[in-house]
């Protein structure tokens, strides 16, 4: 009986201690922002509501923004942020957009008038061209942020999904098949159920 009492008391004390000892992980905000920025996809698309990945990272570090505002980062990205910050995962906030397969911008060069507006909009200098010359996208550099699409006065920019190539193809998760339909008893029971 005494033993049980002692154990219960110990557990209660530890519980109280855990609740009230503040787990202060004093991390410098700037350092934290760097760490967060390293996890963001660097599309610089602004869908999170901030003018770029770094500002969003800073806002998260300051506690002003939530971790689920980055559609290009997607679920994977939120998981990474949650792990870094020791927070709970939450699904992507659809106010900021939805997760899409990666795409790159494509300029229809026959239509392009050479206005340079898209060049000014591109955050990563992935468009080449000069005034009154047609522009083109350097596809390997394009992050797919879509920022060049709205400024185009002639709507000649479209987003094309990136095709999987032999070099970027991924092996699938092996099918984990542990319930073969052939096993008689369970299978029939499941079917009837």
């Amino acid at each position, binding site marked *: 009986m005494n033993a049980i009492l002692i154990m219960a008391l110990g557990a209660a004390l530890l519980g109280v201690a855990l609740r009230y000892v503040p787990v202060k992980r004093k991390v410098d905000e700037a350092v934290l922002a760097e760490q967060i920025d390293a996890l963001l996809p660097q599309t610089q698309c602004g869908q999170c509501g901030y003018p770029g990945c770094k500002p969003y990272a800073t806002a998260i570090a300051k506690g002003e923004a939530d971790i689920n505002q980055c559609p290009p980062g997607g679920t994977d990205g939120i998981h990474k942020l949650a792990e870094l910050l020791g927070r709970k995962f939450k699904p992507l906030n659809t106010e900021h957009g939805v997760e899409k397969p990666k795409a790159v911008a494509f300029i229809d060069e026959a239509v392009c008038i050479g206005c340079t507006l898209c060049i000014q909009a591109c955050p990563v200098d992935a468009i080449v061209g000069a005034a009154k010359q047609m522009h083109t996208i350097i596809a390997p550099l394009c992050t797919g942020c879509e920022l060049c699409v709205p400024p185009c006065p002639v709507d000649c920019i479209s987003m094309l999904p990136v095709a999987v190539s032999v070099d970027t193809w991924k092996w699938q998760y092996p099918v984990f098949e542990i319930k073969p339909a052939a096993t*008689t*008893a369970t299978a029939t*029971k499941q079917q009837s159920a």
Partner: protein
Amino acid sequence: MSNHAPYIRQPASVRSIMLKVLAALLPGIAAYVWWFGAGVLVQIALASAAALAGEAAMLALRRKPLWLFLGDGSALVTAWLIALCFPADGPWWLVVAAALFAIVAVKHFFGGLGRNAFNPAMAAYCLMLVVTPQWMSESQSPVAGQEWQWVALGYLLGGLWLIRQRVITWHIPTAFLVALTAIAGGFHVFNPAAYAGVEFYLLSNSAMLGAFFIATDPVTGATTPRGKLFYAGGIAVLTWSIREFDIYPDGIALATLLMNSCAPLIDRCTQPPVFGNKIEPPAA
């Protein structure tokens, strides 16, 4: 259908491994029957029936393929070990309860075959030791009698065959027996009056069974070569300590459970070096 290379497979299966383990128990069982009568066969039958029933019920509840897993033989191995560890003259419900507990609680509550953290047979033994101590400690004489030597010899033969069949490796039995001999022998020489001799340990029912059949359970034990040595050595030392310093007549079950809980850590700390990293590579 996942079907990439390799397209050819060796015929060995979980079922064939388990059947070999069962076969390796036969010499010991034969000696048991010869010296102590056919009572143990009844126990084996009871435990097997209970284990299979428990397994079938849990598989049905968990919606797993029934015949695939019932046929793998792992429940039978658990049942036979329980029957062989428990007193042969105990009440019939003792092994039945133990087998059910082992299969339902220790095995399936943890996720079934391959997922259990603790050896089901030994966990059941410990439970019964705590719940029904009067049945567990009294009937089975822990003293190594003349008869037990023959049973131990049977287990030893079966175990050596298992090593030959590559079902188990030499590491665990060797480390277990060497460590047990060393610690028991050392203390016995030091103070023969207070500590039992080596033969008392080695020739009892449990030592050989433990060395070749219980500690070698791959699911709950250490798996790296070095880790196996530490793991089995740990079981031996704990077994001896429990027997000498504690109230329980036979410590191998508790020792196994304790080392089961250490196995993941042991594995982590004893990862063998990979190809090319055994010696310091030359500078670039």
